């Protein structure tokens, strides 16, 4: 539990450092100008004289030095107020929750498909290292992992949406939730990610299968099923478990390109748009979420690792 405490304190430190850096970055004139441009239009900005611009900054609250804004922001966040989006002209909170909800749906399906698929394939491959099945599975997983998400997205879109016309091209879901529109993004992410987890599972399983305690179990005269299910799996799944949990963190990166490509209104799209706009409070909130997810997944993976691994649990 001390570990968790450490992690939490580390997380808070990271959050503070990260958000100060973000405030400094977004304090730059370029970003303020970018907000002005988006808000007032090209000619609007060019028509402004420095005084007008200053007045505009005052109106937007952007004239305040970043450290004061940071302090204010921290205060507000602690009270549950994530700030105001310049771009979307709304409170950041609901905006973020809506995006997170969408990404959550996406992530749920990705995990629901990817975890069983990669674990089963990984275990099958690792069980008999070097067999034809193993080599096929390994090659397939290297192959799919090698195709970047953007390419997977393109290939799937070309095949299923443009070619066969089975699935919609985009996933903007403008008329409410639509399962069909979810399929391409989910497929893309699963296809890209499962290979990685399957390979980790395979490596872990293969390592366990060559371990001496498996030899002990076999030479104890246990049936093969028992050796695999009771002795090998438990140990072989420790590493994949942590990898899977850490995929949560990866997913936050991975969804950006998929969401942008498919126009899916999730966390990644929100983040990219906000960053390009210079929408500091949205970027801050997204970073907050990202870091919390990252650290939480690390904590979960630590706890899970400890829980699954008696060597650490009872150290």
């Amino acid at each position, binding site marked *: 539990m001390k570990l968790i405490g450490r992690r939490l304190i580390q997380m808070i430190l990271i959050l503070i450092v990260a958000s100060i850096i973000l405030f400094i970055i977004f304090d730059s004139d*370029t970003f303020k*100008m*970018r907000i002005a*441009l988006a*808000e*007032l*239009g*090209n*000619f*609007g*900005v*060019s*028509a402004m004289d420095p*005084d007008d611009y200053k007045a505009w900054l005052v109106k937007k609250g952007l004239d305040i030095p970043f450290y004061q804004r940071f302090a204010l922001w921290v205060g507000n966040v602690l009270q549950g107020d994530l700030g105001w*989006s310049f*771009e*979307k*002209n*709304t409170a950041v909170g609901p905006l973020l929750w809506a995006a997170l909800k969408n990404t959550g749906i996406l992530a749920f399906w990705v995990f629901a498909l990817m975890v069983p698929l990669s674990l089963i394939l990984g275990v099958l491959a690792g069980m008999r290292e070097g067999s034809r099945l193993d080599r096929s599975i390994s090659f397939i997983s290297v192959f799919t992992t090698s195709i970047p998400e953007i390419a997977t997205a393109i290939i799937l879109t070309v095949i299923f*949406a443009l070619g066969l016309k089975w699935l*919609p*091209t*985009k996933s*903007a879901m*403008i008329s409410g939730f639509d399962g069909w529109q979810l399929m391409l993004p989910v497929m893309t992410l699963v296809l890209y990610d499962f290979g990685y987890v399957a390979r980790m599972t395979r490596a872990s399983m293969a390592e366990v299968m060559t371990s001496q305690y498996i030899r002990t179990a076999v030479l104890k005269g246990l049936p093969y099923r028992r050796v695999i299910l009771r002795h090998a799996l438990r140990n072989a799944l420790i590493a994949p478990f942590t990898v899977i949990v850490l995929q949560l963190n990866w997913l936050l990166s991975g969804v950006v390109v998929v969401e942008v490509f498919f*126009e899916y*209104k999730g966390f990644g799209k929100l983040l990219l*748009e906000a960053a390009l706009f210079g929408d500091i409070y949205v970027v801050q909130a997204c970073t907050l979420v990202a870091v919390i997810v990252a650290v939480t997944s690390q904590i979960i993976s630590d706890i899970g690792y400890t829980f699954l691994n008696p060597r650490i649990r009872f150290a």
Partner: protein
Amino acid sequence: MNRREFVRIAALTGLAAGTAYAMAGLADPVMAAETGNLPFPADEADAQSGGILKVAMQIQKMEDPATYSWVEMSNQTRHLLEYLAMTGPDNITRPMLAESWSASDDLKTWTFNIRKGVMWHNGDELTAEHIKWNVERWTDPAIGSSNVGLSSISALVEEVDSGEKDDKGNAKMVKKLRDGAITLVDSHTIQFNLSKPVLSFPEDMYNYPTAILHPSFTPPFSDNPIGTGAYGLAELAVGDKCILKRITKTTDGKDFTYWGGKVYLDEIHYYNFDEDNQLTAFAGGDVDAIYEFSIEQMELAKAVEGNIIAARTAQTLCCRMRVTEPPFDDIRVRKAIVMACDNAAIKALVYPEGGDIGENHHVAPVHPEYFELPPIKRDVEGAKALLKEAGKENLEVTIDVGNTDGPWHQSVAEAMRDQLKDAGITLNVNVMPASNYWEIWAKTGFGATAWTHRPLGTMVLSLGYRTGVPWNESAFASAEFDAALDAAEATLDVEERRAKMETVEKILQDAAVMVQPLYRPVYTITSKKVHGYPAHPTQYHQFNKVWMSA
């Protein structure tokens, strides 16, 4: 004077459009005459009521219509808030909330007759008082409306000492409405007394931030949207969607009747899509129409089932040279650059579909007072000779490009680079982010600046080329030009004005201030179900007569 011009003048002088068309002997298939002085197209015989029009556009916020900065914003409220005048897809401005208008001979007094029986969404009737309230509001320094910059409104204000001092201790001046600038003649007649002649008063009244608000308005508009249009705001989520629905009841419970005749659509839905993605959203069947697609997407658009609509505009790119910066202070250098460029070739390369060739004087063929000068010819040898004369052989210059209106700016600059090479001129294309470009646009020696569409050519020239005006990015200064432009602007009659424009255009063209290769078209696409979709040069959405077939 051709017939089209006549209609325009008629409108300018306050004649009802229908009448004007009739006088010009036009069949008037587009404009309604019989429905009595309405600015909208005629009702189509087979038009069907009902349906939802889904449009892909960037969804902006709806704060204060007087300070709108994006066309998209105004489109979101265009069917709620209406204007005194309305410029149609044909670039002709007709009375809208005004029934008619008239100007004095010196163009210093404009009288507007406000349409009777126009009902606000809260049940009130529109009066001249409301118009006065709006105009006063535009001129209120506290509001900060860009309308003050319109030549019409600026002629209503004066600069006064605000009583405050700026940093340097100079008196801080603010613009305030002049006393007596607005006179209410009666409940439905309003008169504007200008300090200088203004030709474009009606056109200004359809500038997108000049929407007429109810005096009860407090920003943001989306919180209490009261307008005179046929639609009301049902839902707004910035960056997501904007849903408009037909108004049937006023806020005080009465039946709402719309002054503008029949409208067909039940609802108008705007969905947020980036410009790049609007066409793919359309192709995917998510929406029925889009705000705009770029020339790069033309082939994709052609492959999608739908009606492609190309609007002719005065939107352009001025690759202007600042005449005070070396080497452009030498007119031979500027001339050589202009001569070495082939505008027609650039246009054909960059905008093969639609659009007009630019003639380096910033008056577009769509402008009513456009005077057709002899076509300009590329003259590489002449350019070389000029450079030799100026001692600037192997000239190397850099053009700043911000792609503020899309990547085609860069394509233009690159095409110029290739052409200038023939004349021995090295052109470096310095691409920078749009926001950076707007910081230097008025200062750089050689820059590619996008100019938007304005209904009259004189409007643009006044803004950008008069001596010392703020937007004079080229630092062009010519008393001769200013005088010629004054003369043109004081002429209400288009034919006469056109004649005067010859001098104006010629002076500017000969000064070789800019390479202006083209006027770009604006493309949009609608599904086959959509009928009567307007091809407006400034992408103003006028959906009153749009209908959907089942």
